[in-house]
């Protein structure tokens, strides 16, 4: 992602709304999508998180 783009507006071109909406509809998200996202919150146990922290901090100390 590019930083510092806050002043430019995001505009769908004229005549492009219909194909844009069709594309969104084709990628519509479902209840299962949100279930999967919610499940990720508790995917790792405390002991797994400890291992992950070690992995992260060992690398960052190098």
């Amino acid at each position, binding site marked *: 992602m590019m930083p510092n783009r806050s002043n430019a507006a995001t505009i*769908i071109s004229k005549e492009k709304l219909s194909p844009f909406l069709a594309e969104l*509809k084709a990628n519509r998200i479902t209840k299962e999508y949100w279930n999967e*996202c919610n499940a990720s919150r508790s995917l790792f146990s405390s002991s797994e998180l400890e291992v992950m922290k070690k992995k992260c901090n060992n690398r960052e100390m190098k």
Partner: protein
Amino acid sequence: MIYIELAKANVSQDVLQCFDCGHPDFNEFLSNDAQKHSASGAGVTYILVDKNEVDKQITTVFAFATIKTSSLYYFKEGVDTMFSIPCAELKYFAISKSFQRSLTGKLGVEKYYSTVFFEILLADLYEMSTKVIGFTGIFLRSNEAGERLYRRKHFIDASDFVIPYEEDDKLGKCTPMYLSFADNVYGIFGME
């Protein structure tokens, strides 16, 4: 794991400086500028940490995300008025280098850590959109490294639909992407 607001987190400057996503600008933003951005209303940064550390001293930042409010503008056919819908803009999303391009084989299903970290953010953003400040989708401008992740989570490539920014570098390979939360996208855009 949980995303908590950086400004409220009990995290030292040392820990923030240890975060390395492999992109110096992003690392520097987190350790030097994120709090100032937040205080000025330019974008709020959340860090992904171990939930058990929230009330203690945070030792590890797994990922961070900076979000701001935005709008997606559009024209209806045959009408000159410009319309808009509210969205959140994901200005930054970065995960620690230790977990990039790595798979976790939980529940018998292999998934990238980046996907898991991003899914937690998506769940939080969805909750935010229904409980804190209303918006109906997420806009972002992806670099090449992030594009596959966003596509996995149903973001569409909006390059063919969005008017490029005037200062866009055509060789910059920055892709505008959008995810709609709406069940009925035609209804949200007033096109029923």
